[in-house]
Structure formats: C-alpha cells, structure tokens
C-alpha cells in the first residue's frame, strides 16, 4: 500500500523567513488531523501539498505525484486533480445556484460538461442538499454553505480530501452533520482525509492519526492512541454528597487529590495495586455518591499543549 504523503527534509523559506524547516512525514492513507498554533506553517504545508508552492529544498510525494515540479506543468494538474480542497474562506460564486456552482467546479477539474452536471446533482443529494440545490448559493445558511463547499471538493471523486476548518461557523447540530459526512466519505468510500483545524474535538471524532506542527517543524506524528500517554494510575471522579469526609477517607487510604474544581469534580492519583472497588466502598461508608469514574488518560488537548511546549 503506497503511503499517502511522503515528505523528506522539506524546507520552504520566503526570503529570510523560514516557514517550514526540515519536514519529514510519512503518512499512510486514512483520516489524518493537522494541528498547530497560528503561524506554525500549516497553510504553507497545505499549499505545498497542492502544488501551489515548491519546496526550497527536499522532496515530496502525494500518492504517485512528485511535488516540486513546474507550477504550470501537466504533473501539477495531475496532482491537483488527486486532491479535493475545501477552503476555509467563503469561496462561493454569488449568483450561481448550487448545482451550477458544483458543476462549474466539476468542469474546472476536467469533467465533461454533462458528466459534471450529473455528478453535481448526485453529490448534492449525497450531502443532503437536494432540496436546496436550485437556490442561489448566497442564500444558503452557514451549514449549507459548508456542505456545498465540500460538494465542490468531492465532485471529481478525488482519492484525497484536504479540508481547512470544515466546521467553522457551524452550530453544534451542523457540526455533527458535517463530521458525520466527512467520516462517511472517508470510511465508506475509501477517501483519505487531511483535516486542518483548531477544534481538537473534531479531530478526536474523525481522525485516527494526527500531525502536530509548531514553529515550522513537526512536533509529533502518529495515531492518537500512540501519542496520548496512558496514565495508569490517574482517575477523574465526580462525586455528590458528603465530599469532605469522603476526601479524608480517600487520602487516608492512599489516594491523592490532584485538583478539585469545587463542584465535586476531582482528579486523583492512586498508588499501584489500587482496586477501584475501594472508591465505592469508601463512598458507601461516608455517604458520598459517585456519579462518574473515568481513567484520566491524556486528552488530545493536553497532548497538544505538551507538544507545542506551553
């Protein structure tokens, strides 16, 4: 199985400013999250992958196409046809209806005219915009606008999708719908997805792997499970009732309360060999009520903050 993206010591400078330094990535096909603070070089990396910029040094490959060719060459067209890009910006053409917009996108990707129109209708139905497809795109709601942008990225059936903040401006219901659609496209239809976003919850919901960029360098890459540390002896607990007595008993039994938010949500460290049954026994005797008990593994956010060096 060819890897999706291979970058070897890729550097990109703009005059004296180094946007990307010595990036080496090897990513298999699948769902990948691209994370990083502002100014980390995420947008430069995306432009490189799409062939809009060439590396100052180093080589790279997306599926079968090499990066770094002449900007207007046939190789570059092939590269961009492999990729469906959903921009963060508005990127709509006001005055066109939904179908016209997506079929224009199809024709720009090189589909023959009738094929593009047919695909536009199909893709819009799949993305739940069937009733709205004859309305003008500037009249769409925020959720519909994002979905029509996804439609124009998918119209030519690319193997790779590059999504830049796909859930920006969406309310929680819209966000769920968008993430569900992206996951369905990736899992059911075998597309690889590179998701660039600030919302770590999106990455947790959709992606198997993450790449963390900061300061132009790769600070971490791998599956979420590999990267997030497993903390064997840490728990988060939510309790109600006789909190002070319960806390005393816990500390006496050997557990340490690491943080307390004042409303009964605690983080604990327990000694090795601890049985969770002890929690319940102590709660029972002191009259506290345990409403949740969750192993406190590192969350993606904690991983991010740790990796980026804050």
């Amino acid at each position, binding site marked *: 199985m060819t890897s999706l993206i291979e970058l070897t010591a890729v550097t990109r400078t703009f005059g004296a400013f180094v946007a990307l330094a010595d990036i080496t990535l090897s990513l298999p096909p699948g769902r990948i999250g691209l994370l990083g603070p502002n100014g980390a070089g995420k947008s430069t990396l995306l432009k490189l992958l799409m062939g809009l910029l060439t590396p100052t040094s180093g080589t790279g490959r997306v599926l079968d196409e090499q990066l770094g060719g002449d900007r207007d060459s046939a190789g570059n067209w092939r590269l961009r046809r492999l990729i469906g890009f959903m921009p963060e910006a508005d990127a709509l053409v006001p005055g066109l209806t939904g179908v016209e917009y997506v079929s224009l996108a199809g024709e720009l990707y090189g589909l023959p005219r009738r094929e593009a129109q047919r695909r536009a209708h199909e893709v819009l139905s799949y993305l739940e915009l069937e009733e709205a497809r004859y309305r003008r795109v500037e009249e769409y709601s925020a959720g519909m606008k994002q979905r029509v942008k996804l439609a124009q990225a998918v119209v030519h059936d690319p193997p790779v999708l590059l999504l830049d903040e796909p859930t920006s401006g969406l309310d929680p*219901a819209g966000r769920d719908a968008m993430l569900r659609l992206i996951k369905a496209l990736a899992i059911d239809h075998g597309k690889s997805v590179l998701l660039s976003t600030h919302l770590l919850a999106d990455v947790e919901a959709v992606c198997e792997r993450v790449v963390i960029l900061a300061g132009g360098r790769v600070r971490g890459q791998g599956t979420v499970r590999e990267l997030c540390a497993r903390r064997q002896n840490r728990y988060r607990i939510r309790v109600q009732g006789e909190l002070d007595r319960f806390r005393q008993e816990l500390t006496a039994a050997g557990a340490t309360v690491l943080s307390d938010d004042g409303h009964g949500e605690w983080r604990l460290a327990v000694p090795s060999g601890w049985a969770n049954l002890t929690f319940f026994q102590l709660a*029972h005797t002191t009259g506290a009520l345990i409403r949740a008990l*969750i192993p406190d593994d590192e969350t993606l956010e904690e991983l991010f903050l740790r990796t980026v060096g804050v």
Partner: protein
Amino acid sequence: MPPADTSLAANAPSGAEGARRAPLPSPTAAPPPTPDPPLLLFEQVSKWYGTVLALNQVTLELTGGITGLVGANGAGKSTLLRMANGQLKPTLGRVTIRGLDAWDWRARRRVGYCPDLDAFYEDLSGRQFVWTLARLCGYTRAEATERTERVLERVGMRERANRTLRGYSKGMRQRIKLAQALLHDPELLILDEPLSGIDPIGRQELLELFQQLASQGKCLLISSHELEALEKLTNHVAIMARGRIAAVGTLRQIRDLLEDYPLSVRIDVDQPRELARAVLALAEVQAVSLASGDTPGLVVQARHPKRFFQAFGRLVVEQHVEVHRVEPLDESAHAILGYLLGGSGRT
C-alpha cells in the same frame, strides 16, 4: 454564584414562564426593603423584525458569574445579546440593567460588548484603535492613554499592539475586541462568539482570562458554539431555541428535567454479561446493552439518575465488582442541546 434555578419552558402551555418574575409591589402596604436589582433582567421580551419573530417572550435574569448562551444558528442569540447591550429595543417587554432600561446611557456604562464580527479601521494600530474608543467613552486624553495601556496589559497585547490591524491574526483581533470592552470597567461583559477561529493555546489563555474576570466580580454572558470550552468555564447555561429560552440552569439540573430521555451510562467491567444480569434487577434501569469497542462493558439506560447511582454503588460494594469506568454519555451540553432541539441534526 448564579442562583441554582432551573426551568424548562418547552412544556409550559403559555410560553416561557421563565426563571423568576420581579415581584409586583402592592400599592397600599409599605414596600419591603428592595435588594439590589439584578444586573441583567429580561422581562417577557419579544422582538419582531417585520413579520419575522426573533425573540418570543424571553425571560432571563443574571446576577453574577459566567453564563453560557447556547443554541442553533438563528435561535435569536445575537438578538438577545444586542438587546442586552442596548442596541435594539424590544417590541414587547423590558430589558433592564440594574433597574435602568438597557438603552439608557447610564445603563450602557455598566455593559461591555465584544461583538462577533470585526468592524475595525484596518489602517489603525491596535493601540490607536483602543485609544480612540476610550476617547469616545468620554475620557480625557491622559486617562484614555492610561486605560488603554492597562486594558492592553490585561489581555496580553501590550507588546504587539503597534502593528496595523490588517495584519492581525484572529486571536489578536479577539483580544483587541475584548480590550475595548473592558475600557470602562463594566460590571456586565457580553461576549458573542469569543472563541471562534482561535488555536488551542489562545483558547486556553482566553478561558483563563475569563475566569480571572469572573473572579474579580464581573458577570459574563458568553454566547458560543464551542460547548466543550464553555463547559470548562461554567456550569450555568441558558439554552435558546426558536427565539425562546428553552432552559436555564446548571447542566445537571437541566438534564435531570429531561425525563423523557433516560441517562445513558457506560460501565466498563471484565465480565459485562454477569453485571448486566445484576444491573437489570435494579428498578431504575430501563435497558442494558453490551458496549461495542475494544474494552468490554455495558451501556445502561436509567431513569432517576441519583437513585440509580446510589443503587449501583450498593450493588458494586455487595458483589465486589471491579469497575474500570463509569461514564455518563449524555450529560454534556452537546447531548442536552441535541435532545432539546429534537436531534435531527439538519441545518
């Protein structure tokens, strides 16, 4: 802390009965000693734009702390915030800030507003922009300069505020907006989508800033779609849907009121089927299913959460079960919003 007060208005026959109504003074008896009027009070406020109904009998009261305002797009959140700000007048009802009408200039002095859209003069620097707004507030030049510096220090922009606004990132713009909202030391801060488009580090810093502001006694009303971040900040939310306040209170209280939806709890144990038999014997349990995923466990649907957890605790102790995880799956703001809005997920 805000009052531990809950209401579910969706089932009330005549619309939102609301959290609390201001008591009407009886004309003949001696007036009782009036407590400080609430910081923000919406009294049965409705607002029309032509025939479009934006707010429908909204009643809301804030006295302090951080309150989250959540809801779908088009539910009326921005309208509500602009009314609290004094930019819009209600068609029916009253909006008051400490007893004064919200559009009165004395009331506006107590309110700071951080809008969601940028409306900057892009050629000014951040410092100049904030200084200009300070002068617009009515401060003298010297005082405006001093306040500008103080407020820029507060939001962490003191070193970076000399570049023109055109080159600012989203996070920096949000901080400048926050700075101008803090210029006149308002008691009430209204923030419309302050966290959109900000990277996780910036988000963390802003959340800490909000907590600091709240601990200094300011009241914050934050409207946001980022429910996970809001939950870290506060427990107290107001949920809006279709121009009405659907529910106000802490998340737990709202969840407890949603009696139609039993609580889903995930329980990870080594021998799920045995525990399932025991759990089904409990009266509060409605359904048990075996959990999918790598680790073995159960998903239990239970009514009366408090009684269920008590019974479950007893069960664990009696039968010496080693439980690896107990996690309620739909107590988050996200799940509650989904239930309240019917959960179809279409926008």
